[in-house]
């Protein structure tokens, strides 16, 4: 309660001194607050990537199952189930990221998925297996058209974005828990 009283008093003081006017707001308030804008933009980008990546896989589950098989990592029994569930997981995550729903869980799950994709690509690149990554499209292209290094690099950039967002959300949640219930802000 103390802080509320202090805020109210300071507002009254500002009014009484004639300083509380929107056109005389401090310089800081009018500038872009990058610590808020950047995470917002990153989450929109990641959300859009996940939604875009999910659509073709939802439309062509058989081709996506073949792409998973080509990775030669999952046991045969799990290939179809992964091809059925993973695209929906990506779609839901993308939507949640854009809408801003359950951000801690959605962001950490995005990071976990990207880490898995990155590991799978890197593993195959290192063992000399050249596959079509099946990341955004399930259409059977010629794998040798695009070098594996490009897939690894692209996934690495997405992973960095997700790691940044995860650390930001973790930090914000940590800060929010320090504040009293009335002061608490959104974690992002």
């Amino acid at each position, binding site marked *: 309660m103390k802080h509320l009283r202090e805020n109210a008093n300071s507002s009254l003081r500002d009014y009484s001194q004639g300083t509380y006017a929107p056109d005389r707001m401090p310089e800081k308030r009018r500038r872009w607050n990058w610590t808020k804008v950047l995470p917002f933009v990153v989450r929109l980008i990641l959300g859009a990537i996940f939604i875009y990546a999910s659509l073709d896989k939802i439309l062509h589950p058989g081709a996506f199952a073949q792409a998973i098989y080509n990775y030669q990592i999952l046991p045969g029994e799990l290939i179809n189930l992964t091809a059925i569930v993973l695209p929906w997981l990506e779609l839901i995550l993308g939507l949640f990221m854009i809408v801003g729903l359950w951000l801690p869980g959605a962001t*950490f799950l995005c990071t976990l998925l990207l880490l898995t994709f990155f590991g799978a690509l890197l593993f195959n690149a290192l063992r000399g297996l050249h596959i079509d990554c099946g990341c955004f499209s399930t259409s059977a292209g010629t794998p040798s058209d695009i070098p594996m290094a490009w897939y690894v690099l692209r996934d690495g950039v997405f992973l960095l974005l997700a790691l940044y967002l995860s650390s930001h959300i973790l930090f914000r949640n940590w800060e929010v828990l320090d504040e009293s219930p009335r002061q608490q802000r959104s974690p992002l």
Partner: protein
Amino acid sequence: MKKMTETSKLERIGFRIFWQMGTIVLLAVTIGVIFNQIRPDRLRLVADWSVETQLAQELGQNMLISLEEARELCSSKRAIFFDTRPRELYEQAHIPCARNLPWEARDEYFDRVMGNIPQDALIIAYCDGETCSLSKDLAVELFYRGYDNVRVLVNGLSLWVEHQLPLEKGPWPGES
């Protein structure tokens, strides 16, 4: 108000993250499975992705060959072996009677490697690993090109090594 301890903050954030992650995964499983069941081109939830089944599905026949048969055919030179892995891997180690026909560069290699092989010759394709599909892909391609006597030695190189059979290194002599 008393501030939370570091441990309880971590527990609270961790709990929030995990229940949200779990619920999202559960949601995706539910929607994915229901949607799959109602779509006309549904996938079976669990399918057999073994090379044997895939070959049987694509060509309607079993084209696998056992290691014992392959070894005998190699020593008697009654079959032509194709290592379908990339050239670098072939040169590191391969089955002695095998030529290299990398699946990914098949168009570049095909005429040179297949030039003198009659269409009724017994051909055995192999690669490495239980799930490696390169040999299966080559077998199907050769079958459609008119080579009806094609077989696949699944997990060929690993089996060969496991049974301590001899290997060779370096490029295929016929390549030069």
